[in-house]
């Protein structure tokens, strides 16, 4: 499946207005509406996609949102990975389409082998929910190109199975190839190896992370920031980044 061509509208309007970004809903997904809202706030059209539908409706990019798909039964993301929509996502991702996996979506991407490693239960066994500082390690991916390398950002984090694990060789590879996209700053909230909060594939079009950018896109409803309480909108940059990568594709 090839969904990377600009839509007619995007061709007519050389900007972000015509971009269509799909948000997949699995049974048990929680954050699909927030993700769709983030897409709209960034200036694109949000397209609702259903896990059982094998068509991605010619979207330009896809977000796998957070939640507890299939109740995290078996392993987080393990059953969703075999949904018809995921076969299309795997094809499209291998063709270069931008794909963002947030929290449970990140777990689905690792189960689908689009990203290496896996997530196991937090080392302290507790569910964690906090405003989390991150350091941007890679500002060249489809979803981070409007950040600066080394930039500190703050977005919400909420998970139970958030401990990123991989063998040492895989971790060395990720580090060596610059594929660590985000690292936890200040405190490692789940025991993730090498403080890794998010990673990308070798092409930089697929990004997965445990924290939630879609919950920090609108002043008044985000984390605390220098501008004031709940004023943080660092998450919006994920969505404007992908739009600019689509425009410049």
């Amino acid at each position, binding site marked *: 499946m090839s969904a990377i061509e600009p839509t007619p509208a995007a061709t007519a309007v050389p900007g972000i207005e015509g971009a269509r970004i799909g948000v997949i809903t699995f049974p048990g997904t929680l954050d699909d509406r927030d993700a769709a809202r983030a897409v709209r706030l960034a200036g694109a059209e949000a397209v609702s996609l259903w896990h059982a539908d094998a068509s991605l409706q010619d979207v330009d990019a896809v977000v796998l949102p957070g939640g507890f798909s299939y109740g995290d039964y*078996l*392993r987080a993301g*393990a059953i969703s990975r*075999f949904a018809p929509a995921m076969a299309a996502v795997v094809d499209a991702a291998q063709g270069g389409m931008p794909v963002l996996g947030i929290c449970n979506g990140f777990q689905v991407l*690792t*189960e689908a082998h689009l990203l*290496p*490693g*896996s997530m*196991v*239960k*937090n*080392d*302290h*066994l507790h569910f964690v929910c906090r405003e989390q500082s991150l350091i941007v390690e890679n500002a060249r991916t489809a979803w981070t190109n409007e950040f600066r390398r080394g930039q500190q950002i703050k977005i919400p984090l909420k998970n139970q199975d958030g*401990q990123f*694990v*991989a*063998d040492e060789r895989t971790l060395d590879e990720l580090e060596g190839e610059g594929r660590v996209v985000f690292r936890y700053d200040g405190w490692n909230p789940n*025991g993730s190896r090498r403080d890794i909060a998010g990673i990308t594939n070798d092409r930089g079009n697929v990004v997965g992370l445990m924290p939630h950018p879609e919950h920090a896109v609108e002043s008044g409803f985000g984390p605390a920031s220098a501008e004031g309480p709940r004023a943080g909108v660092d998450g919006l940059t994920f969505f404007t980044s992908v739009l600019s990568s689509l425009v410049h594709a």
Partner: protein
Amino acid sequence: MGRVVVEVMPKPEILDPQGKAVVGALPRLGFTQFSGVRQGKRFELEVDGEVTPEILAAAQEAAVTLLSNPVIEDVVSVTEATEDADVAGEASGAPVGA
């Protein structure tokens, strides 16, 4: 009716937080004999007929593709359950490496 038992364990190098929590709770009940616990999973796959070599091979395939994640888990065994398999120590057949 036949039954195939698949056992999956976290890889030794993966910290098992659940096992750690259980080993911490045991001494509180007076079980001071146990110095470590690792928690895994047991799946019982039922088939309508006999458990044939083909069925076992399919179970092995399911074990490594869906029932376990090779990044964090090992398939410890895929065995046919015998009639009186409901008691502990039933493990018949050799362990199957993953």
